[in-house]
C-alpha cells in the first residue's frame, strides 16, 4: 500500500514537472551566420591589438570572426591537438620561432603583396606571414645610468651591472629566449661561452615574467634590462623612467606572425584575414596605435623612432633557434644551479 502510494506520488511529481509548456525562444533564423561567413581565430595578442583589427575585418568583409584568446604556447598546443579535426582557421600572434616549431600544423601562405614586405622578414615557405617586427632593445634607468654608458651587448657582460640586469627567464618567456639568442649571435666567440658569461653577469637575478623587466628598471631595482622595443615604447609613453638603447653590435628584428592552420574549416576567409593583417591599412594601425614596427616597406614607421636602417640588424637564424631551444634550456638550467648554489 505504502509502496504504491509512493509510486503514485512519484508519477504525480513527474506529471507536474514534465508537462510544462515549452516557452518559445526567439528564433535565430537569418541572424546566425552561415558557415561561409565564419572565421575562427586563435590569438595570443592582447585585446587592444586584435580587437580593432578583427572588428574592421568584419565590417569590411562581412565575415563573422570568433576569437579564442590564450597564451602562445597554449594555443599552439591546442592547434596541434586538434590537427585531426581543426577548429581554428588562423593563428594570429606568436613569435616566428614559436610558429616555426609547430610548422606541421600550418599551411604556408604568401600574401598577394609579399613583395612589399621588408627584406629578411620571411623566407619563402615559412609557415607564417609577418604581422609586426619587434626589435630586441636594451633599456636603462635614466637616473641610475647616464646616457652613453650603455651602448651594446658587450656592456652587459662587464662586471659593472652584475646582478643588476633585468632579464626574464627564457624558459618561461619566448621573447626572452629570442633576446638571449640575439645576444649570443651578436657577440663574437662561442655562443655557449657567451651564454655562460651572461649568466655570470646576471648573478642569478632572473625575473619570472617578461612584463616585469621594464618595471624592475623603472623602479630602480635593476639598472639595465633587455626587452622588446614595443614594451619599452609603451612604458615610455606611460611616463616610465627609462631610455632605450639599440645595441651597437646589432640586434634581432624578429617578427610575430599570422599563420594559416592546415585543414582549416574556412580556408578562404582565413586567407582573406591573412591578407588583411598585412594590408597597408592594418600596418598603419600597427605603427600608429600599437608602438610596433610595420613589416611593409610602404608603411613608414613612427617618425620619432630610429629607422630600421639606423641600427644594425643581424639575420636571426630562426631554424637554429628552434632546433637548439632544448639544448639551450638544458644548459641554462644547469649553469643556473652552478651560479646559485
Amino acid at each position, binding site marked *: 500500500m505504502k509502496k504504491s502510494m509512493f509510486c503514485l506520488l512519484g508519477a504525480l511529481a513527474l506529471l507536474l514537472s514534465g508537462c510544462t509548456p515549452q516557452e518559445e525562444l*526567439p528564433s535565430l533564423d537569418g541572424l546566425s551566420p552561415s558557415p561561409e561567413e565564419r572565421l575562427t581565430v586563435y590569438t595570443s595578442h592582447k585585446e587592444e591589438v586584435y580587437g580593432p583589427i578583427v572588428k574592421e575585418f568584419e565590417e569590411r568583409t562581412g565575415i563573422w570572426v570568433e576569437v579564442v584568446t590564450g597564451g602562445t604556447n597554449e594555443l599552439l598546443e591546442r592547434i596541434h591537438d586538434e590537427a585531426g579535426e581543426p577548429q581554428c582557421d588562423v593563428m594570429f600572434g606568436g613569435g616566428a620561432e614559436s610558429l616555426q616549431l609547430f610548422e606541421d600544423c600550418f599551411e604556408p601562405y604568401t600574401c598577394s603583396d609579399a613583395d612589399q614586405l621588408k627584406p629578411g622578414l620571411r623566407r619563402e615557405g615559412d609557415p607564417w606571414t609577418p604581422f609586426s617586427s619587434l626589435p630586441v632593445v636594451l633599456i636603462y634607468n635614466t637616473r641610475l645610468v647616464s646616457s652613453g654608458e650603455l651602448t651594446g651587448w658587450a656592456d652587459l657582460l662587464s662586471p659593472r651591472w652584475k646582478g643588476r640586469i633585468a632579464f626574464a627567464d627564457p624558459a618561461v618567456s619566448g621573447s626572452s629566449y629570442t633576446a638571449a639568442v640575439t645576444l649570443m649571435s651578436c657577440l663574437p666567440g662561442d655562443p655557449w661561452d657567451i651564454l655562460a658569461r651572461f649568466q655570470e653577469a646576471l648573478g642569478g637575478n632572473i625575473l619570472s615574467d617578461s612584463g616585469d623587466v621594464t618595471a624592475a628598471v623603472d623602479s630602480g631595482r635593476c639598472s639595465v634590462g633587455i626587452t622588446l622595443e614595443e614594451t619599452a615604447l609603451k612604458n615610455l609613453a606611460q611616463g616610465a623612467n627609462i631610455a632605450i638603447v639599440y645595441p651597437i653590435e646589432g640586434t634581432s628584428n624578429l617578427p610575430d606572425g599570422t599563420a594559416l592552420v592546415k585543414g582549416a574549416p574556412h580556408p578562404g576567409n582565413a586567407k582573406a584575414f591573412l591578407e588583411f593583417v598585412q594590408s597597408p591599412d592594418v600596418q598603419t*594601425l600597427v605603427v600608429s596605435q600599437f608602438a610596433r614596427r610595420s613589416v611593409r616597406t610602404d608603411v613608414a614607421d613612427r617618425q620619432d623612432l630610429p629607422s630600421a636602417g639606423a641600427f644594425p640588424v643581424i639575420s636571426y637564424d630562426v631554424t637554429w633557434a628552434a632546433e637548439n631551444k632544448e639544448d639551450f634550456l638544458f644548459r641554462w638550467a644547469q649553469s643556473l644551479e652552478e651560479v646559485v648554489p
Partner: protein
Amino acid sequence: MSRAPSGASFQRKLTWTFLIVGVIPLLICLLLLLNIFRLSLVRSDRSSAESQLSALEGSLSALLSSCDGVLSDLSGQRLVADAMAQEGKSTLVYNALYNTAAPYLKEADFSLYDASGALLYTTGRGDGGKPLPVNWGLLWAARQKGNTVFRAVSPYDAPTRGAMELCRAITLEGQTVGYAVARLSEDHLTQLFTGRYTSGSNVLLLDPFWDEVYSSPAIRETSLALQLRSQLLEGRSLGAGGEEAYSLLREERSGFLLILQRPRPMAGWVSRLFSLAATMSVLLCLTLSLAAALWFSRQLFRPIRSLNDAMAAVEEGDLEVRMEVTGTDELSQLSGRFNRMTQRLGENLEDSLLQQRELSAAQVRMMQAQLNPHFLYNTLDTLKWLGKIHDAPQVSTISADLAHILRQSISGGPFVPLSQELLLLEKYVEIQKIRFPGKFTYTIRAEEDLKQALVPRLMLQPLVENAIIHGFEDGSHGTVTVSVRRAGEDMVLTVTDDGCGMSPESRKRFLSRDPAASGHHLGLYNVDAILRLHYGPDRGLRLLSHPGDRGTCIQAILPIREEEGGEAL
C-alpha cells in the same frame, strides 16, 4: 476462509477507487490550470515585449532617419563642401551646421571632418581635436559606400567618443573633401530609450556583428553582448534555460539589432508558489480520499464482519445466534433476513426431529407386538403335533398358520411383494374362520400383474383384523372383501366389510391421528403412520363411507414399485 485479507482487499479496492476518483481529476485540473496560466503569462509577456521593442525601434529608427537627413543635407550644401578645403574656421559654416541640425541638437552631436580626418566643426564638445584615421573604420567605410554608414564606436579607438556614429562623405566634383559625422553618445541613447521599456527589463543595442553598441545601465558591466554573441555562433537559443527571456528586433536602416532582456514570465518564485499550492492541494486530496475510504470501509465492513461471524456460528451448528438490527439500510435488512432465516432453520430442524421421534415410537410399538419368536415357534410346533396326535385337525391348522404368520411378520425387510402379503392374509383368515366359524366370508380380488408390487410388510392384516373384530362385534354375519387394482401409476388397496361400521367416535379418534386416543384401533393407526412415513403425509389411510351406511371401507393408494434385482425399495 481468512477474514483479514478479504477485509484488507476490500479496503484497498475502496481506497484505490477513492484515490483515483479524487486525485486524477485534480491533477488534470492542476496541469491544465498551470498550462493555461503559463500560456497566458507567456503571451502577455511576449506581446508586451514586442510592443516595447517596437517602441524602442521606432524611436531609434526615427532618430537615425533624422540624423541621416541632416548628414545628407550637410553633405549636399556647397558652402560646407567648399569650406572643407579651406584653412581656418568660418562662422558661416557653423551657422549652416547649427541651422541644419537645429531640431536634433539634444539628440546627437554633429561634426564636420576634412579630407585628412581632422575635426573642423562640431556641435558637441569635441574630443580634443584628435583626427580620425582616414583609411580605417568610419571614414574609410563612408568613402567606400558613398552613402551614410552606421558604425559602433570601437572602445579601443576612443573610449569617450560615443556609442554610435553615422558618417557621410562630402564630395566635390568627384573628390572626397570631407566627412559629415553624427555621433550618438551613451547619454544620448539612454535619453532616447528611457521610459520606453519596463523597469525590470534591459535594452541592448548590437551592431550587425553582435558587438555591443549600447546597453542599459543595469547590465553595462556584465558583458552580456559577448555571451549572446557566443551563444549565437554556437547555434544555441538565446536565454535557453536561463532566468531571462530575450526578444530581438532589427532596425532596418542601420542593420543594428535591438534586444530586450526581461525576467522570464514564469519566474522562479511564481513557479515555486504554484508547485507548492499544487502539492498542498494534492496532499489534501490524498488525505481526504484516504480518510473517506477508511470511513466507508469501516461503515460497510463492521456489519459485514458481524454477519460473517454469525454465519460462522451457524456453520458450527448454533442456530440460536441472532444479529443486532440497528438501522434501515440494506445491511440492516440483510441482518434481519439472516435472523429470520436462522429462525426458520431452527424450526425445520425441530420438526424433522419430532418426525423422527414419532417414527421410532411406531417401530417400538411394532416390536413390542412381537413376542419372543423362538419360544412361540416351538410352542406352536408342539401344538401342531399335539393336534395331529390327538386327532384335532383344527388345532394343528391354527398352529401351522400362526407359525407362518409369525415368521412372515418378523423376518425380512420393511417391504414385501403383494403375493406374500396376500398369503399371510389367507393364513390369518383361516385362523379367524376357525375362531369364528360361519361368522364371515372372505373374498379377495387382486389383479395378477400387481402380485409382484411391493407393499409395506403387514399392512393388510391389521386392516382385515379391524374389519373382522370390529365390523361384526354386534354378532352379525358379513363379508370381508380385499381388492387390489391398478389406477394409473398407483395401485389401490381396499378392505371392505359389510358389518356394523365404525362409530362416529371411533372415526373421529382415528382421524385425529393420536396414538393414545386410538384405543381399539391401534392397528389402523400404526398402518396409517407407516404409510405416511414411507410415502408422504398425504398417502395415509382413507376411510370411505360404505354404500347403505353399513360396513367400513378403508383404502390405501400406493405407488406401484417392484422389486429390482432382489433389492427392496
